[in-house]
C-alpha cells in the first residue's frame, strides 16, 4: 500500500518532486515575506520609541500609526 503510494506506477519521482517543489516554494516565499514584514515592524517600533513627546503626539494623530503599533504588540503573523 505505502509502496504503491510512493512509487505511483513508476511516476512517483515526478509527482512527488512536482508537489515538493511547489510546497517548498510556498514555504520560502511565506518565510521571506514574513521576515520582511517583521523587519519593517521592528524598524517602526524602534523609530517610534526614539521620538520625543511632541513627535509622538503628532505621530499618534494618524490612525494608521496606532494600528501598526497595536499590530506589533499583538501580531503573531
Amino acid at each position, binding site marked *: 500500500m505505502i509502496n504503491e503510494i510512493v512509487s505511483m*506506477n513508476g511516476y512517483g519521482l515526478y*509527482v512527488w518532486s*512536482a*508537489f515538493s517543489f511547489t510546497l517548498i516554494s510556498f514555504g520560502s516565499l511565506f518565510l521571506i515575506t514574513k521576515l520582511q514584514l517583521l523587519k519593517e515592524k521592528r524598524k517602526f517600533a524602534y523609530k517610534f520609541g526614539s521620538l520625543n513627546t511632541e513627535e509622538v503626539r503628532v505621530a499618534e494623530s494618524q490612525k*494608521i500609526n496606532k494600528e501598526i503599533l497595536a499590530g506589533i504588540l499583538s501580531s503573531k503573523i
Partner: protein
Amino acid sequence: MLKFFEPNKIFAITSRAPKYVLFLFIIVLSIGLTEALFLSPEDYKQSHSVRIMYVHVPSAWISLGIFSLIAFLSLVSFIFKNKNFSLISKSLAPSGFVFNIIALVTGAIWGKPTWGTWWAWDARITSMLILALFYSMYLLSWKIFRKEEQAIKIASIIAILGAINIPIIKFSVDWWSTLHQSSSVQILSKTSIHTSMLIPLAIMTAAFTLFSILIFLMKYNTELIKIKNKGLDRL
C-alpha cells in the same frame, strides 16, 4: 470610490486578515492535497503522472491572473494618478512570479514522462517563459529605480507592455500547433474534464488563490509600514 482604497482606511482590514487567510489556506490546501494525491483517479493514458496537473494548472492560471490584474491596476494608476494602485500591483507581483516559476518547473517535470522531454520551445511554454521575464523586469524595476515616481512609471510601462503577452499565452494552443492540448476547462462552454478530476483541481486552485491573497496582504502591509517609517523620519 477610489477613496475606499486609501491605505489609511484599509490597513485596519489588511493588518488583521492574514491570520484568517492563513488558517483557511491550511485547511483548503490539506483537503486539496488529499484529493490530488490520494483520492482522485489516475488517468487511463498518463497514469499517476496526471496528478502533476493539480499543481501545474492552478499555478499557471494564477500567475496569468495576477499579471493581468497588475497590468490593469498599472493602467488605472496611470489614468487616475493613484499611487495606492501601484502599491497594490507591487505587492501582487512576488506571488505571481513564484506561481509562474512553479508552472514552468512542474511543467518541465510533467513533460518528461508524457512528452519524453523536460523542455520544448513550444508556443505555450515559450510565452510562459516570456511572462516570467516580464515579472522579473517588473520586480527589478522597483529595486533599481530609487525615485518612487520613476519606479512607478517604469514598472507600469513594463506591466502594460507585458499584458500583450497574456492573450498570446491563452490562445497559443489555438493559433499554433503545440505540444499542449487545447483548454479542457471552459467557463462559457462545456468542460471536457471529468468531475472526479475537476473537483481536486478546483480545490487546489482555491488553495493557491488563498496563498496568493495571504502573500499579497503581508507584502502590502510591509510596503505601508515602510512608507510610515519614512514618515517618522520626517517628523
